[in-house]
C-alpha cells in the first residue's frame, strides 16, 4: 500500500493518491494537498465544499458526484469548476482526505 506524508504524518493512500483512511486526515493537511492539485489558496468557498465532502462521506460511505454537489452543497456546478478546475468531485475528495467517489455506471 503506498503512503504519502502530509503535515509530517505518514498516511496510507491508494494508487491515485486518495486517502484510504479518512480518519487520518486533518485540516492542517489540506493546504499541501490542495497545492498538489493546483489549487494555491483555499478560500472559505473551498472549505464549504471540503467540509461538505467529508460530511457526505461520513453519512453515505462515498463522496458525492459533481451533480449532487451542485444540488446540495450550496455551490453551483459552474462555481465548483472555478474552485476546482481539474474536476471538482475528484479534486475536492482528494483535498478532503476521502476515497475517490464511486461513480455510477
Amino acid at each position: 500500500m503506498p503512503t504519502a506524508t502530509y503535515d509530517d504524518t505518514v498516511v496510507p493512500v491508494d494508487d491515485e493518491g486518495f486517502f484510504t483512511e479518512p480518519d487520518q486526515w486533518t485540516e492542517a493537511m489540506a493546504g499541501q494537498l490542495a497545492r498538489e492539485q493546483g489549487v494555491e489558496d483555499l478560500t472559505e468557498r473551498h472549505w464549504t465544499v471540503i467540509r461538505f465532502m467529508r460530511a457526505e462521506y461520513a453519512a453515505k460511505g462515498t463522496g458525492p458526484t459533481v451533480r449532487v454537489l451542485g444540488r446540495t452543497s450550496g455551490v453551483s456546478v459552474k462555481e465548483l469548476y472555478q474552485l476546482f478546475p481539474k474536476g471538482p468531485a475528484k479534486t475536492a475528495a482528494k483535498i478532503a482526505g476521502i476515497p475517490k467517489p464511486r461513480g455510477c455506471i
Partner: protein
Amino acid sequence: MSKHIVVLGSGTAGTLTANRLRRMYDERECRITVVDQDDDHVYQPGLLFVPFGLAQPHGLVRSRPRQLHDGIDYRRARIDRVDLDADTVHFAVGGWLTYDVLVVATGAALLPEETEGLTGPGWGEKVFTFYDLPGAIGLHHALERFEGGRIVVDVADLPVKCPVASLEFAFLADWYFQRCGIRDRVELTYVTPLDGAFTKPVAAKALSGLLEEKSIELVTEFTLGEVDGTGGRLVSYDEREVTFDVAVVVPLHGGAEYVNRSLGLGDELGFVPVDQHTLQHLSHPNVFAIGDAAGLPASKAGSVAHFEGEVLVHNIGRFLAGQPLDASYDGHTNCFVETGFHKALLIDFNYETEPLPGHFPATLGLPLLKESHANHLGKLAFEWLYWHNLLPGRELPGIGSAMPERGKNHVHV
C-alpha cells in the same frame, strides 16, 4: 388476511415484479395494484436501432396492462405524491390508494431541460437524443439527410439508463455510414464525463480499443455544461468545446417527479435510496425500489431489474410474513454491446467483479468482452425473451440472479 401491494410504474421492473408477486400469492392472500400514467410500454433496448432504420417505432410499443397477469389491477393515473407516514399514494386528479407494501418502479426520467441550451435552438434539428421514441425517430430522419460532417455522441453526466447504449450508437454510426458509402466524409466523436470509454478498467480498455479501431475520436472527463445549438458547440463546465454538425446527447437523468414531492422517499436526484442487497428502503421498511428508480451503485439497465426481481419478490414475501429479509442482490448486470457489422460484445459483472473476459454463463457459453456474431444473435433474440419470458416474470433458462463466476478470466490491466 389480505394484503395490498402497490407497484408504482409498469415498465420492465414494475411489470415483472407484479407478475412474479401474482404467481407467489393468490388473490385472496394479496391484492396487487399497478399504477402508471399511460398505457404505452416501450421496449427501450429497441430505441438504439430506430435511428439506423433497423427497428420500426410502432413495433416497440405494446399495451402496459396487457403485459400484466390476470388478477392484477391496473390503474392509469398520474401520481402526485406518496405519504410515507400514512402509507398512501395520492393521485394528481384526486383519489388515493393505501398499501401494506409499496414498490417504487417508476424508472428514470430524462431531464434535457436541466442542461443550458440543450432544448433551445437546434433541438430536434441538429441536437437529438435517441433515449425516447420521438427523439429516436427525429434522429432517424436527420441521419437519412446527413451527407457528411461531424457527429458527436455525448453523455451529459451520470447516472444514465443503459450506460453502453451511447457507445453502441457510435459503433453503429460507423457501420451505418460505411454501408451508405460516406464514412470517409463523417467524423465521429465520442464524448464522456468518465476518464475512459467505460468505468471499469478491463472493459474500458477493450471498448476504447474498439473506438480506435473504428476511427472514433474519444474525448474524456467532459461534463456537459452548455449546448450551443445554433453555433454547433458543446461546452463543458471546464470550458472546453467540441463542435458538431449533429449532436446525439444522452441528457441528465433523475427519478420520477413525484418522488421529489414525497417527503422522505427519494435522494437529491429523485432516486430511492434502498439497501443495495435487500432493495428495502433505508428508513421505511414497507417500501422497496427496483430497477432504474432505485438509488443503487449499479447500472440502470433492464438486466438489473430482471435480476433484482427475483430477490425483491422473495424479500417482500419475507417482510409480509414478519421474517427477516434473507435474499441478497449482488449487483449482477449483463449487457450486449452492439458493435455493428452483425457483431456484439457481451459484458457481465456485479458490485464486486468488473466486466471480465471469458465466457457466459459458463466456460462453454457466449464470449465475454469480445466481438462475435453469436452475441449479436443473442441481442436480437432478447426482444422475444423480453416480452414472453422476462416481463411475465419467468426465469431465463440457465441465467439466475447471482452473477456466474464460472467462465470468467480474472486478468490484470
